[in-house]
């Protein structure tokens, strides 16, 4: 019987497909939270597989901070067209204009925390009862405790101490009006698994992940890209470097690493030798030891 087993990537894929199909069966109006980053791209690819030969039966929801890499937006629009699915955009700029949130001030100001309000507003306005995300348990310590099916109350909040037990692969998505779920089909994947899968499946990803020449400034121990939003501080200097990004967030907070990896094979090789976590270059996680847990409780991705 020895041939009847799956390798680890096939098993992870099968688990994710199972989870995505459960979402479709258990919820009325699910969406995929799409950031343009590799994890949400992989989730979207898995959704395509889960429902083939049908189209993906969910809309993609993008929370647009206005501080985007232009490459990300182009990639998003091309993918939407290719899949033939609906795109919902929640705009942080609109939330600011409507007075729902106020822009942060100071040197390290970002729109990262403001996304929470925009995201929750978009979920409410579009009557979304399940938002599928690309979060992984290996990313961050608070995420290590996250369920596949993660309950949010009617304020969109996560209560980590009162999570529903999740046994075998029986998922409980029951909820009351106004509440919603966050579902994480690739919970059990690591960064390395994601890259190996992208390589195997030949999944297209934004050019930002590959090594390229870019104007950058050294800040908070990483190379922050030059953009219209960047204000140079005293002593800071613009360099031209060959860099690539390990994660994609806002252009204002996503640090690049110096790299020559310009193919998926080279990236996978580079990642396997990395001694820093991928979120090590994200200033949003560095604000405090429990920064991620605190944001997640409020409704963050």
């Amino acid at each position: 019987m020895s041939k009847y087993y799956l390798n680890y990537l096939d098993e992870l894929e099968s688990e994710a497909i199972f989870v995505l199909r459960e979402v479709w069966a258990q919820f009325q109006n699910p969406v995929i939270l799409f950031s343009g980053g590799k994890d949400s791209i992989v989730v979207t690819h898995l959704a395509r597989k889960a429902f083939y030969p049908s189209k993906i039966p969910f809309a993609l929801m993008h929370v647009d901070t206005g501080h985007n890499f232009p490459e990300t937006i182009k990639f998003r629009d091309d993918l939407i067209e290719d899949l033939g699915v609906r795109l919902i955009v929640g705009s942080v700029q609109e939330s600011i204009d409507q007075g729902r949130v106020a822009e942060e001030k100071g040197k390290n100001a970002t729109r990262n925390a403001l996304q929470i309000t925009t995201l929750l507003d978009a979920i409410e306005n579009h009557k979304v009862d399940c938002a599928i995300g690309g979060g992984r348990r290996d990313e961050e310590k608070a995420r290590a405790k996250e369920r596949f099916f993660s309950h949010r109350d009617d304020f969109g909040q996560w209560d980590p101490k009162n999570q529903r037990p999740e046994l075998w692969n029986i998922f409980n998505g029951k909820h009351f009006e106004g509440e919603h779920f966050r579902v994480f089909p690739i919970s059990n994947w690591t960064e390395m698994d994601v890259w190996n899968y992208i390589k195997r499946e030949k999944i297209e990803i934004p050019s930002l992940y590959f090594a390229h020449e870019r104007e950058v400034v050294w800040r908070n121990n990483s190379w922050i890209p030059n953009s219209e939003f960047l204000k140079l501080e005293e002593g800071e200097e613009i360099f031209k470097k060959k860099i690539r990004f390990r994660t994609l967030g806002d252009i204002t907070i996503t640090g690049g690493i110096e790299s020559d990896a310009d193919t998926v094979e080279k990236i996978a090789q580079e990642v396997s030798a990395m001694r820093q976590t991928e979120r090590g270059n994200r200033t949003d996680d560095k604000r405090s030891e429990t920064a991620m847990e605190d944001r997640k409780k409020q409704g963050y991705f």
Partner: protein
Amino acid sequence: MLDNNQLLRFTTAGSVDDGKSTLIGRLLYDSKSIFEDQLEAIENTSKQKGHVGVDLALFTDGLRDEREQGITIDVAYRYFTTPKRKFIIADTPGHIQYTRNMVTGASTANAAIILVDARHGVIEQTKRHAFIASLLQIPHVIVCINKMDLVDFSEEAYNKVIGQFEEFSSKMLVRDVRFIPISALLGDNVVNRSDNMTWYQGAPLLHTLETMHISSDINKVDARFPVQTILRPQSEEFRDYRGYAGRVAGGVFRKGDEITVMPSGFTSKIKTIDTFSGEVEEAFAPMSVSITLEDDIDISRGDMIVRSNNKPEALQDIEVMLCWLNNSPAKPGAKYTIKHTSNDQKAMIKQIVYKIDINTLNRSSEAIEIGMNDICKVKIRTTKPLLVDNYRENRTTGSVVLVDDATNETVAAGMVV
């Protein structure tokens, strides 16, 4: 990493003192799965708290409360990879008040690591962990006799623990038990073979985890396919396509197999087994596929496709070993939603047959209430038949959870006996 590498899920249960965190830390550290920035963050916190050296427990405790109290409360999942396998650790607390978290972590595990302090031998907690491993039918149990450095690496101390363990576990159903003498602190027999215990002929822990046979952990005999959802693209290219999407829960399905759809009893033949990458000749657990049939029959979510010569039982009265997971006790006569594979029904707990004291394994038939962390044998009646197998035969089709309709919370987990 080779393409045919498998995924192994294991659980560790233990309390603060038995070296569980040190063991996990050692496995992650020696397999280069702890990153520099994570280590740095832990070093900083250790210093702030005035600990000497690096407190590896901080690596496994994720939530604010856990870090403040220095205990693991919830199940934390950890990942590491070696050139031979990918591993998922479900790291669970060991204390009795967290039985439900241990049960949760155990539910998907191929293997359980039970830590025993060589100085103290088998204690109440060891028995509890072994019992949960047997209750949840974890296929492989590895008893790590830890802190061998504190008993002069004595073979006698090791044998004594084996004797104690075998004596009390004889009543349990554990298929595969192994014993490894280790020192998590010094690294003996964790990743590398110990020079201090040449009398031990077996493999170190990591090698054991890398090589143990797990392909047979999933039932490959009794073909079961719970239907999750129906795929009807209604596009030009797939106008009449009607695929039953699901994940094989047991056995092997092949093109042309004679199948029965339960509970309706309609029979047909498998026309195709489809995936995004194309048709496949056969599908086995745990593959996610889409099945089409030769005949157009009425099938919906919750139905199960099985091979006609091997069917599960359709039962409205089931006996289950129930672990209660919620703060509010079970209400006598109350109705719950019972979730079994892709099928939801209403259910009522009719009778408590007995309650088990998980420290002594004594059964008490006078129990009238089921509270948090209790493990009981109960009789459940459902509104419509469930298509169940005995949990020992199939962990997917033999398991249920109960959901309280008043709160929507998952309140109990059950194993069909």
